[in-house]
């Protein structure tokens, strides 16, 4: 073994069968984000070798280890090539460059770099109004004071550009051929709704009025009216919020104009920026990131596989055929992408794709439902993947029932009989999810029926429908951010899951944010208003009798829209941040201390 050997990612230098090699530890029950290839021999046993680097999309999240982009690429390239899978879920640019540098020990002929989806969320975490650092908050304050709500995102974009350029320079310094894969994301299905940002005057009230108008027009089958309402909404927020772009995209789809739908969906992704995000969104490559990757490839004479262009040719508005969720590829998506990569590597590719058993396909589909729900997928997507999983393999129904059992238990899923004993359920189905899983449970009821699922729902309870409906640093328990004893709603509505055996009385202790004028607060159930009463910024218990039927249903708290939520609000946020205090750059509509069955 060479003394100078150093680890490559998780693989440690070792001698295997008398040869220099790199060996990884056994993956634990939760996996470790890397490929499961146990040994990588330093000497290539084939004619050529390439290393694939990237994030979870490149690692085949949901399908790995049964099907991964590296395996698909190997199959397309044929026996001449040894494809070494060095992709890692949660990878960042620094880590990717370091792995590429270490991979030189494998004497690769080529590197394939498939990255970009993590560049929005994970690369610029210091651009947050919540980060518990006085200097970072003061920097955010100055960006906000100079550039308004978009100012911090511009600062983050500058930082990101530098990071990507630095990464490409490090890759170029390796003096190896590199093929860059610019990623595409799910433009058709994945929505990233965000609440209105702080807007001047009565902008917030008008914004939600236009949101309602656009949604009503869509529901009424009037895409033209929806488009106008969405455009008016975007005029108010200046494109700082993705919600209006999704409405535009939906209106264009309804009008049959896929080109405009694509443009609007792309704009939605681009406007969902970490720096001023209210609620957690999914990581997706923005057009800026895609362009930076293309630009870097051109500058350094790297090869380029342009997935936005390739997928766009296959389907103008790529959706669930290619993507399980916001960015992770289906088997069809992997095959399309890796065939393109194989063509960039050599002339001619091997025919046929990799086989995938129904069981592994169904498990990935179930994972798509659960993981999607944990990242904010709308109910229709969660139901789609649950249904698909059960259709692909009827045994998926048992796994879905065990998921419900695990989520209904008072202990974490990791301790439950259901989760432990069902080999279908893997970390990708949310072993570490601690909250109630209302969207998944609702989908299970929809797909398998109340009679089957109802008895598994556990004792009566009221739980947040999704914990992601909190501000994202609270939802993600960001380190150092102090916990709150109350829930603040960044939306004018807050959904709770009610599990009941029949009619129940509930009590919600709620109030409006400090400085709010009194306004009407309502509790509704399944869309029907149960009670309305005036609230002000003092805690009040509000009780209502819910005519619930046995099972799971949705309780919604409706908050009043403040007349002038944005008046001076940005200035107040800047003032707080300058003092080193965290600040919201989105309105808070209401606060809940408790919601319970009495």
């Amino acid at each position, binding site marked *: 073994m060479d003394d100078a050997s150093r680890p490559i990612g998780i693989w440690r230098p070792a001698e295997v069968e008398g040869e220099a090699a790199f060996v990884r530890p056994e993956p*634990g*029950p*939760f*996996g470790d*984000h890397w490929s499961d290839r146990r040994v990588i021999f330093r000497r290539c046993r084939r004619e050529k070798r390439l290393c694939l680097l990237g*994030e*979870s999309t490149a690692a085949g*999240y949901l399908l790995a280890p049964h099907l991964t982009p590296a395996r698909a690429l190997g199959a397309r390239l044929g026996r001449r090539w040894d494809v070494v899978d060095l992709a890692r*879920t*949660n990878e960042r640019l620094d880590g990717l460059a370091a792995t590429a540098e270490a991979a030189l020990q494998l004497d690769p002929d080529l590197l394939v770099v498939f990255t970009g*989806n*993590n560049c929005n*969320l*994970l690369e610029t975490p210091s651009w947050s109004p919540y980060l*518990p*650092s*006085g*200097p970072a*908050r003061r920097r955010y304050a100055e960006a906000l004071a100079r550039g308004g709500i978009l100012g911090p995102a511009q600062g983050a974009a500058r930082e990101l550009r530098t990071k990507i350029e630095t990464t490409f320079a490090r890759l170029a310094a390796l003096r190896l051929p590199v093929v860059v894969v610019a990623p595409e994301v799910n433009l058709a299905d994945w929505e990233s709704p965000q609440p209105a940002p702080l807007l001047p005057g009565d902008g917030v009230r008008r914004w939600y009025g236009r949101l309602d108008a656009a949604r009503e027009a869509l529901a009424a089958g009037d895409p033209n009216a929806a488009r106008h309402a969405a455009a008016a909404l975007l005029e108010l927020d200046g494109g700082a919020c993705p919600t209006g772009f999704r409405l535009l995209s939906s209106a264009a789809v309804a009008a049959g104009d896929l080109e405009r739908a694509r443009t609007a969906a792309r704009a939605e992704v681009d406007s969902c920026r970490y720096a001023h995000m209210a609620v957690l969104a999914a*990581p997706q490559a923005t057009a800026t990131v895609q362009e930076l990757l293309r630009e870097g490839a051109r500058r350094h004479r790297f090869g380029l596989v342009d997935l936005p262009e390739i997928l766009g040719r296959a389907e103008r508005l790529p959706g669930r055929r290619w993507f399980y969720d916001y960015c*992770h590829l289906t088997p069809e998506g992997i095959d399309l992408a890796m065939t393109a990569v194989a063509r960039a590597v050599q002339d001619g590719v091997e025919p046929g794709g990799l086989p995938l058993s129904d069981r592994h396909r169904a498990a990935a589909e179930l994972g798509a439902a659960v993981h999607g729900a*944990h*990242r904010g997928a709308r109910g229709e997507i969660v139901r789609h993947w649950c249904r698909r999983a059960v259709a692909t393999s009827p045994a998926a129904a048992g796994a879905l029932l065990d998921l419900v059992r*695990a989520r*209904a*238990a*008072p*202990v*974490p899923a*990791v*301790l*439950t*009989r*259901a989760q*432990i004993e069902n080999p279908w359920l893997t*970390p990708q189905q*949310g*072993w*570490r*999810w601690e909250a109630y899983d209302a969207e998944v449970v609702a989908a299970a009821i929809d797909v398998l029926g109340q009679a089957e699922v109802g008895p598994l729902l556990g*004792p009566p309870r009221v739980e947040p429908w999704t914990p992601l409906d909190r501000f994202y640093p609270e939802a*993600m*328990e*960001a*380190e150092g951010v*102090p*916990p*709150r*004893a*109350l829930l603040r709603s960044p939306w004018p509505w807050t959904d709770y899951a009610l599990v009941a055996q029949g009619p129940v009385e509930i009590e919600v*202790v709620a*109030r409006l944010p400090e400085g709010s004028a009194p306004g009407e607060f309502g509790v509704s159930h399944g869309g029907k208003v149960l009670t309305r009463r005036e609230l002000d910024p*003092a*805690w*009040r218990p509000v009780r209502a009798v819910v005519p619930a039927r046995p099972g799971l249903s949705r309780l919604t708290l409706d908050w009043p829209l403040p007349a002038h939520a944005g008046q001076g609000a940005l200035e107040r946020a800047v003032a707080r941040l300058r*003092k*080193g*205090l965290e600040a919201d750059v989105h309105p808070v509509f209401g606060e809940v*201390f*408790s919601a319970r069955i009495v």
Partner: protein
Amino acid sequence: MHVVGLSAHYHDSACCLLRDGRLVAAAQEERFTRLKGEPRLPAEAYRYCLREAGLDPRQIDLVAYYELPELRRERQKAMGRLPDPEPDPVREIRELLGHEGPIRLFPHHASHAASAFLYSPFDSAAVLTADGVGEWATTVYWSGDGAALEALEEVRFPHSLGLLYSAVTAWLGFEVNRGEGTVMGLAGWGRPRRAGALRQLVTSLPGGGFRLAPDTFDLSHDRLVSPRLCELLGPPRPPGGELTEEHADVAASVQEVLEEILLEKLAFLRGATGSDDLCLAGGVALNCKANGRILEESGFSRLWVQPAAGDAGGALGAAALAQVEATGERPAPLDGVDLGPGFDPEPYLAATPLAPLDFRGRSADLYDEVARRLDHGEIVGWFTGRMELGPRALGQRSILADPRRAESRERLNREIKRREPFRPFAPAILEEAAAEVVETPAPSPHMLRSHPVRAERREELPAVTHVDGSARPQTVTARRTPRLAGLLGAWRRRTGCPALLNTSFNARGEPIVCTPTDALFALAGTGLDALVLEEWVVDAVPEAWPELTTLWRPPRQSPFRRDLYTF
């Protein structure tokens, strides 16, 4: 009237709730967040306290905080160690807890003093509070009478017995604010041969005053160890380094110096107050070895130590001061520290693949079964009733073992607590049998004093007799801790032995367990042989649990706790 007391922003934040002068709930935030010594505002503990009392926030008449933030900030600024952003407890109580009513702030040491005297059984008493530092004060002498507390004299930062002990703790390679108990345990193994060197650092002044040499600490970093300390004691032991006789001697020396100065100053306090009764609080009051000596040598005839004597107890004190201020009445005496949440474990167990033994309605059988297991050398997790407040497990969240077996201590230290082999364990003894075991049989329900073990018992109880022949007993009554008393009775009937080894139910670096889930994790992650969850006994976990549970709660280092969930 409902008064909430809070402590936070240093270590061990906590919340308590007084209802008409009676403590109805109290808990440390670490038990909920599972981060040992959690310093952040106790949002979870606050929610728990209100839930326990069936209250919503508008029913809280007053929130009392245990410190004066402005004065603390002044001291931090003077030290050049002002945090950025600066904590602002009043703003946080409004914004993070949502409290709308009045907020009262009380000085740190007044909160400590109130946590001791105002919850004690004494009508009047002398009170000593001593810790690392509050705002500026480090040691304060008080006279308590009825609902009133009068400060007689105070010693100010940097002259601090707590910091002196912490600096030596750091010199010995242990963590400041966590390792002081380890030093106390190590002290029993040494002789105070370096006390002379340490005495050079402390100058006693008339009355309650004392001064430390100006170069005793290096306050520019958390480890505190100064060149002067190294000059006096030699090079510090690196964390995890070999422990020698010399280290034990240094531990014994700092313990000796601490006890000397405490005894000297308590003589002053006794003279100043003329009281026979003494109350103690502040981190220094957790030094049970010193407490034992105080009871025996200080001349005070009765001693009451706040069971949560550290900063967590400050929450109780602040609430008591607010109660007195509002009503003129002091709160009811503390009647046990089982003020945390209790649970019905049945639904927890039902969701797991476990097959627990069910003893519902058969308490006597349960005690016999557990006694049998302990007699066979098993080490048992014991989870009953409401969780204790403070650092000691007193029979609600305990680990129990046979005190007659030396290997109980070895196994507990090595496999379960994963800590230094010299660390001692304490006995739980029925109050009526205490005199058979220790030489000072005064009730000690909170395990806060060391006493000599009777000579004839020392060999019989090797797992709970420290190397210096002392033990830190918990005296148990059926009124306060019926299940533990029931078990002790069964144990004695079976073995003739009056004591059980009782230590806190936690693994190294973890807070004491709070919920049945925490207990099941501990069962999976340690070498416990069995777990008693109320009236169930669990004695085996699935093969995969140890690995799964360890991985499920990884160290909290990443920006996002759930980073397994892909980005």
